């Protein structure tokens, strides 16, 4: 009964790599160290699978499905390749090659989560570090618009508030913890200070903090519902900390202001570096969304929203991003890899996917696979296939293959290679 140690969890951007997974008869029977979601992922990975390739809902052979997919992509004028944040880097690289070949647009799910973070970075840069640096050094940790208790379940214990490290042997008691959110989440119980900000008011609050850190006064009583005294005190605490870290999530990127919220946060952190050491780290959601950005960047220069229609890469979020291409009715074919946009994109965009020929590569049945013209089952990366994934802080880790995929099911990268071959003819 093989027990795999140091298994990497392919769920969220934490990429915890200390799991122990027991496999019996090509079935996972036990998971140790995993969080609830992780455990669910390993234990249920065999459920709700796409069993056979499908064309228009009818089962087909892999060859037929690949051929059909290639035909769709070849005849499209504005094909979109989307998803990629829940697969390994080899598949991402192949998807880019395919996009280039068919003169299509390639986008990954970063465009609807931390795309704004990247836009802000491209304007201002960022001061960041790996999670271990926070673990070892941070005496002030701020969670802003993110809730690790719901989305990154082991973050607090492994990497941040509770973790013990080189200069933080006391763990939680060596740190001051702040949570900022629009509603009182469970983080309130974790934090020493909970700051409730008016929905859509983060930009103002961050700006005010910046001004105060720069030494200006604040001649208003409150900003976005936060009293002046709290702002002044928080700014002071930030300046006085020895190593400060801000983790932020979709509460900043998806709310009013989007990338400008992140710019304000980046700017605040940059300014704080004149007083002490301060970093900012986005809480990346899907386990390899960082990898999708990373690979796309080294191959094309751009992290997402890349258009190859003119033979060379072009980049413009808002123009070449999936939501926009779909909701404007521009995409005339789509290849969705390891993602479920029908469940998560705004209805108008989801609807477009149902209108056009959509190819879906996914281990599991999803809303997108239910509307797909061509559906090809794939091996689950990190369980049935190996490959690289990049943690939320950019650390590359090798996903393990713990067992064989179902009969005839191939990893994403191999299926994409077959489609590429078919397209090249």
């Amino acid at each position, binding site marked *: 009964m093989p027990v795999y140690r140091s298994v990497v969890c392919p769920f969220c951007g934490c990429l915890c790599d200390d799991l122990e997974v027991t496999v019996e008869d090509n079935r996972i029977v036990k998971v140790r160290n995993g969080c609830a979601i992780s455990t669910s992922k390993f234990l249920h990975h065999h459920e709700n699978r796409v069993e056979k390739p499908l064309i228009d809902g009818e089962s087909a052979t892999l060859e037929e499905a690949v051929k059909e997919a290639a035909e769709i992509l070849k005849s499209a004028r504005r094909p979109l390749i989307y998803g990629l944040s829940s697969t390994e880097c080899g598949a991402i690289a192949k998807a880019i090659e395919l996009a280039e070949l*068919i003169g299509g647009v390639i986008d990954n799910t970063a465009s609807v989560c931390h795309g704004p973070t990247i836009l802000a970075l491209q304007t201002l840069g960022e001061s960041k570090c790996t999670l271990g640096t926070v673990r070892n050094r941070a005496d002030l940790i701020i969670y802003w618009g993110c809730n690790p208790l719901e989305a990154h379940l082991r973050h607090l214990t492994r990497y941040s508030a509770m973790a013990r490290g080189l200069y933080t042997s006391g763990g939680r008691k060596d740190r001051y913890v702040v949570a900022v959110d629009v509603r009182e989440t469970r983080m309130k119980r974790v934090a020493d200070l909970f700051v409730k900000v008016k929905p859509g008011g983060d*930009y103002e609050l961050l700006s005010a903090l*910046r*001004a105060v850190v720069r030494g200006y006064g604040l001649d208003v009583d409150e900003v976005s519902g936060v009293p002046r005294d709290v702002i002044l005190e928080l700014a002071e605490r930030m300046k006085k900390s020895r190593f400060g870290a801000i983790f932020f999530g979709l509460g900043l990127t998806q709310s009013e202001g989007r990338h*400008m919220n992140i710019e*304000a946060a980046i*700017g605040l952190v940059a300014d704080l570096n004149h007083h002490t050491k301060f970093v900012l780290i986005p809480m990346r959601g899907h386990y390899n969304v960082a990898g999708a950005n990373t690979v796309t960047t080294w191959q094309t220069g751009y992290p997402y929203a890349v258009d190859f229609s003119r033979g060379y890469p072009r980049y413009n979020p*808002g123009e070449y991003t999936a939501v926009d291409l779909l909701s404007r009715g521009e995409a005339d074919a789509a290849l969705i890899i390891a993602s479920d946009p029908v469940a998560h994109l705004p209805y108008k965009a989801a609807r477009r996917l149902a209108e056009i020929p959509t190819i879906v590569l996914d281990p599991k049945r999803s809303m997108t696979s239910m509307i797909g013209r061509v559906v090809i089952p794939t091996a689950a990366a990190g369980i049935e296939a190996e490959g690289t994934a990049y943690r939320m802080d950019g650390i590359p880790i090798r996903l393990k293959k713990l067992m064989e995929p179902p009969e005839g099911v191939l990893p994403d990268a191999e299926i994409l290679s077959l489609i590429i071959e078919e397209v090249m003819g």
Partner: protein
Amino acid sequence: MMELRLKPKVSGLSIPLEAEVISPDVVAGKTLREVEELRVYHGNRVETLSEYFEVEGEVAPNPEEQLIIVEGDVSWVKYIGAEMTAGKVIVKGDAGMHLGSRMTGGEIIVEGSVGDWAGAEMAGGLIRIRGDAGDLLGAAYRGSPEGMRGGCIFVEGSAGYETGTGMRRGLIVIGGDAAPFTGAHMNGGVIFILGRAAKRLGAQMKGNGSLIICLGEVEELLPTFVYDTTYTPTFMRIYLKTLSEKLGIKRAEEYIGRAFRRYRGDRAVGGDGEILVVERG
């Protein structure tokens, strides 16, 4: 000016056409036949201008004398007049994204509305939009620290998010309402808003003479802008006269002699740009 007319053969393409060739610089000096053969991009296909437009009229020997009239709605055409240096383009309907982006001279008149990124990173010339503008009007492309570096954009209707982001020089006049983050990262340049200005005006504005003038209502200013005074600065008369005389905005003259509230910021970036808001009443 010699007039070249482009009549759209299709309407409302869902995949937009990229036609930076609709520019006096490209057209001038060519024969009509050569103009018809100009390359346009439709999705991943390369096609010719004549597949989408009937081309008639006259071609001028140089761009200065070239007028191009696009007769109809071309909201599905991107990059009209992009990088043009001289001459004139009139669009008798809506136009798509990137209209007049990076242009350095000449004039574009759009009788309808335009898509996003119109006049992005432009350095000279005049763009008049009778309808509304999309987002990022006259803005910097992503990653670039410099947006509009010169020229004038006049939108008679409203303008979208992040208008004039990273602006360094030139003038943007918004006849209608301005969406949030108008004038973000401004570092020089002037923006007039005649309608309602949404919040986060001038966010992260630096200084260097950056100026936003609000003649209409202002939703809210950032807490990092500091109110200085209410006064009637002389210089305002010059801008208002320019709006009236050069852009034909007669109602601008009504504001001559009016008092303005002066705010400086954005303190979040240590900036000393200005927002002047007309005093009500």
